[in-house]
């Protein structure tokens, strides 16, 4: 079997080719292709109904494809049942076996593979220490907190050292603080064991925090597949721009390759303006700045409302044409006094580097 090599140079661990899936008249996956390099952490990000979980289920083997193929390290696994695919899996609701202890849960994938008892015991100890639950083996599942249960689920997914781990919104049942701590832990875990990981989430911040690359899905298609910074700074279209970050989209008119106009004002951008279609300017709240003196890319707006949000102040702004957008400013003593009061007019500037013009995605 010839080794398949990804664009980056490492071998391809997972390759999905032209995958399509329909439920009756509804197309949930529309000819999706995805290559994931060995050891990579790729997040499938999208709103509910975008097809991200379906894509994960297809990689896991739970869903049959109507069309297309799935390859693991070059081998066609399209018709292989889940239990022969050798994957570790973590679900949102943990999906631990409620009638087994922690150790028995971890032993399950080892027993299923006929691994001898002594070797299994060693692997279980190793996996428990990996998730900082050494000594919890004899506990029942109902004696654990939500965070501990998710750690057991993680340990169970890695205990047999799979080359591939799939996680379906594993942290969304946890509260915010625990979730952020677990995000870091999962990253560390991934770095230690180096298994190729596919992670499904609808939380853009989680995707940005954890991934090597993010695949943004909308209506059964991958709209953009890129590194987090690229996704944030260079969104492919208005859907990605709106889904990731806090931004409002303003309709603009193209002037030339690097200039558009908004409400009569000229905006220069360092990126090339798409040549056709309906164009929008991405007004990210944290990229806006109060303009001082003669600047380019300036827009005048009325401050409608201030909202205090702890680490930052959010101001709701409105253009003469009724378009409203947000401006966010850190609540630092040096910044505070400069924010215009409610009802006042002020000029706001966007740096040409931060001036992002994208085509409006089809509704």
């Amino acid at each position, binding site marked *: 079997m010839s080794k398949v090599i990804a664009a980056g140079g490492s071998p391809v661990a997972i390759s999905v080719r032209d995958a399509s899936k329909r439920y009756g008249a509804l197309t949930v996956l529309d000819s999706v292709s995805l290559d994931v390099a060995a050891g990579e952490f790729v997040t499938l990000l999208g709103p509910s109904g975008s097809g991200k979980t379906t894509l994960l289920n297809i990689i*896991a*083997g*739970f869903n049959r494809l109507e069309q297309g193929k799935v390859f693991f390290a070059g081998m066609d696994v399209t018709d292989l*049942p*889940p*239990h022969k*695919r*050798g*994957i*570790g*899996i973590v*679900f949102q*609701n943990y*999906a*631990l*076996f*409620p*009638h087994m202890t922690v150790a028995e849960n971890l032993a*399950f*994938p080892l*027993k*299923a*593979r006929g691994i001898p008892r002594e070797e299994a015991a060693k692997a279980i100890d190793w996996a428990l220490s990996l998730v900082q639950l050494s000594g919890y083996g004899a506990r*029942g*599942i*109902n004696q654990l907190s939500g965070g501990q249960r998710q750690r057991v689920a993680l340990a*169970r*997914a890695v205990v*047999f050292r799979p080359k591939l781990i*799939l996680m379906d919104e594993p942290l969304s049942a946890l509260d915010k603080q625990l979730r952020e701590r677990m995000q870091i832990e999962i990253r560390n875990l991934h770095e230690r064991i180096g298994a190729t990981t596919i992670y499904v989430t609808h939380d853009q911040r989680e995707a940005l925090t954890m991934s090597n690359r993010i695949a943004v899905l909308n209506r059964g298609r991958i709209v953009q597949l890129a590194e987090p910074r690229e996704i944030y700074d260079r969104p492919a279209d208005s859907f990605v721009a709106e889904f990731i970050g806090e931004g409002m989209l303003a309709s603009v008119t193209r002037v030339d390759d690097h200039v558009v106009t908004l409400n009569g004002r000229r905006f220069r951008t360092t990126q090339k303006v798409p040549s056709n279609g309906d164009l929008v300017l991405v007004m990210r709240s944290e990229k806006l700045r109060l303009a001082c003196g003669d600047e380019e890319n300036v827009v005048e707006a009325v401050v409608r409302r201030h909202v205090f949000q702890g680490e930052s102040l959010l101001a709701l702004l409105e253009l003469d044409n009724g378009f409203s957008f947000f401006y966010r400013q850190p609540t630092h003593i040096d910044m505070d006094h400069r924010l215009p009061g409610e009802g006042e007019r002020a000029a706001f500037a966007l740096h040409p580097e931060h001036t992002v013009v994208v085509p409006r995605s089809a509704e």
Partner: protein
Amino acid sequence: MRRHLNARFLLLTPAFLFVGGLLLLPLAWMLVLSFVDAGRFSLVHYARMLSDPSYAKSFWLTFQIAGTVTLAAILLGYPLCYWMLRLSVVWQRIVMICVLIPFWTSLLVRTYAWLVLLQRRGLVNTTLQDLGVLNEPVQLMYNVTGTTIGMTHILLPFLVLPLFAAMQRIDKDVLRAAAALGASPIFAFWRVFFPLSLPGLGAGAMLVFVLSIGYYVTPQLLGGGTTVMIGQIIQRNVELFSAWGAASAVSVVLFAIVLLLFYGMNRLVSLDRVFGGSN
């Protein structure tokens, strides 16, 4: 606070009077009767149960039939529930109604229906003969076989209802996790699905068994006088011999056995752990 408490107890009164007056008092009275003979305290009714072998024989037969019926109900009901689980919700309802229709029909009607089916020139015998399976009709009723068939049919819903409910409660992701983690369908069934369905199976089997032990109508009609279960012994003592003391003693023993069974069942299947509830 006091008023509030009183008001709540007031709500309980009808139920309390009903259960107390019509269940607990008669039970206590039955217990008293079983120890009384000719107006004096006596153990004669219990002694007779030990000395007369027909009692032991009937108890043994009752448990044999109850055990067979329970086993048959499990063998029929478990695959049925497992199959139903895979159907769409609409079909699940349709099949469930099919299971329940006999349940809503009079016990007597169903038993007589079996009488028609199982007789020497009944549908079962003639079909088997037409198919060449049998050369001459076999005795399917007025014996243990007929009683067992009739009772299994009548009691099957009591197994199916709790078992199917328990199967439906099993988290689908747990089964998916088992498959993804490398468990073949058979391994996953025995290690995950079956243990998680046990509380429902236990509850259903318990219901069938306990109801079987006290069964009267079906063995009376399909047993043909030779299959005498405990319920019939009690009935004969009361109606034929007006021996209330003897009937009470048999009832007390039967009742004690059922209580013991419940106690043992509760110890055996620790429901808390199986359901993942906190303790």
